[in-house]
């Protein structure tokens, strides 16, 4: 089971959380102008990286708030968790190497 640091509550067990999929997907500002291809990209196409991923989590059995995380999908080690609304943080090579270990 993963140990996940909620930015609001601190470290808690994975069973308290639910995964919310890829982070930083913006709703289209002008939905009426989107082509079918753009809708498909927004709704269904996803990053599925073998390496660092930015994803949403919700502390469902805690503060019930969403937050974002960067995690290495090869090891499931978290690099950082951060509040919704913040830009995706830069990951240093040292942090990336630690997460990949």
């Amino acid at each position, binding site marked *: 089971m993963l140990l996940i640091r909620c930015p609001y509550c601190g470290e808690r067990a*994975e069973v308290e959380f639910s995964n919310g999929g890829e982070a930083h997907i913006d709703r289209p500002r002008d939905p009426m102008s989107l082509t*079918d291809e753009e809708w498909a990209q927004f*709704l269904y196409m*996803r990053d599925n990286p*073998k390496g660092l991923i930015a994803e949403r989590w919700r502390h469902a059995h805690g503060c019930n708030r969403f937050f974002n995380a960067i995690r290495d999908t090869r*090891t499931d080690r978290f690099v950082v968790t951060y509040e919704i609304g913040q830009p995706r943080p830069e990951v240093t090579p040292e942090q990336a190497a630690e997460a990949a270990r």
Partner: protein
Amino acid sequence: MERFSALSLARKALGGHLGWKPQWRSVEQPKKAYDIIIVGGGGHGLGAAYYLAKQHGLRNIAVIERGWLAGGNTARNTTIIRSNYLFDESSSYYEHSLKLWENLSQELNYNVMFSQRGCLMVAHTVHDVQVFKRHVHANRLNGIDNEWLSAEEAKEFCPPLNISSNIRYPVLGASLQRRAGTARHDAVAWGFARAASDMGVDIIENCEVTGINRGPDGAVTGVETTKGTVNAKKVAVSAAGHSSVVLEMAGIRLPLQSNPLQALVSEPVKPAFPTIVMSNTIHAYISQSDKGEMVIGAGTDSYVSYTQRGGLHIPAETLAAICELFPMFRRLRMMRSWGGITDNTPDRSPITAKTSVPGLYVNCGWGTGGFKATPGAANLFAWTIAKNEPHPINAPFTIERFRDGVMIDEAAAAAVAH
């Protein structure tokens, strides 16, 4: 190829079983060029090579595998084979596969240990009852066997089942597909590898594809691998959980998320369990292997991962459900557990199709239920590669269905079970 028969087995037995030869050629170094390269040496990829050689007369083929033969999801599933899917598109695809399973041992001259012991899908709620009855009717309209059993009839078919009314989710009935069953997962891959190799297909293990090469017109010209450049006009990707990673090399983004799916087996016991039982609602999947182990399928972890592990709380939840449905297993000890990386589409239906890149084909998105489709997907993928157009059965299973809004929504229809 040395054919198996009662006579050949007896002769080898008399010789102390010392005379057996390797079942397929091991090719260390790929040739410079092939007609077709298949990326991924699991059941689906090896099967596609087999059908390309057998049915389409194309024999200059390489199957390139990053690890060892059939060491991915082919070796990590719970071997359930059934075709009782809801929608016409899905049930005809899975039924095509089930029909091939029924004759596969004879066709390959290799015992894949296909055992049609039936698959019982247990209903625990009024909603389950309605959904499963709808499945039964939809299947029967398509000529696929599926029937509804009362709780008492289900217990008669599977005596270990607990149908008492005082459990948390009492059994209200079950649907039964009698032609469903299990097979020996390794044997399927080995059988396809042996037959394909015999027709000239090169199987190259420990060779990772690191790039997809394309010409000035955008068409595929081959692949880069850890064993050098290999040229081909057609590249067919059958890489399961790693499909996104491989297709990204050609700039294609797929509607896939790779999640770990866990399974576990118990210590071996005497034959005690006559069928396959699946419960979507409380998430229990169980059958008994010929070795005697109870083979148990657990749930999917919710996050993207390539670790082939997963959280222990996921199988724990499944074991709780198993213990309630089958109290006689409460003292059974679990022996091994593992995870496989499943490639899940939003509608939980697969993709077997051409891509937007000329000469590049993909068979992926089988998610948590690809094993049952092994011969069917291989057969239709081979057709798609050979003819550069899909067979009518796999024609709806494109990438473009997500753009065009023609999903085959087995996610809603089948809930979680595959």
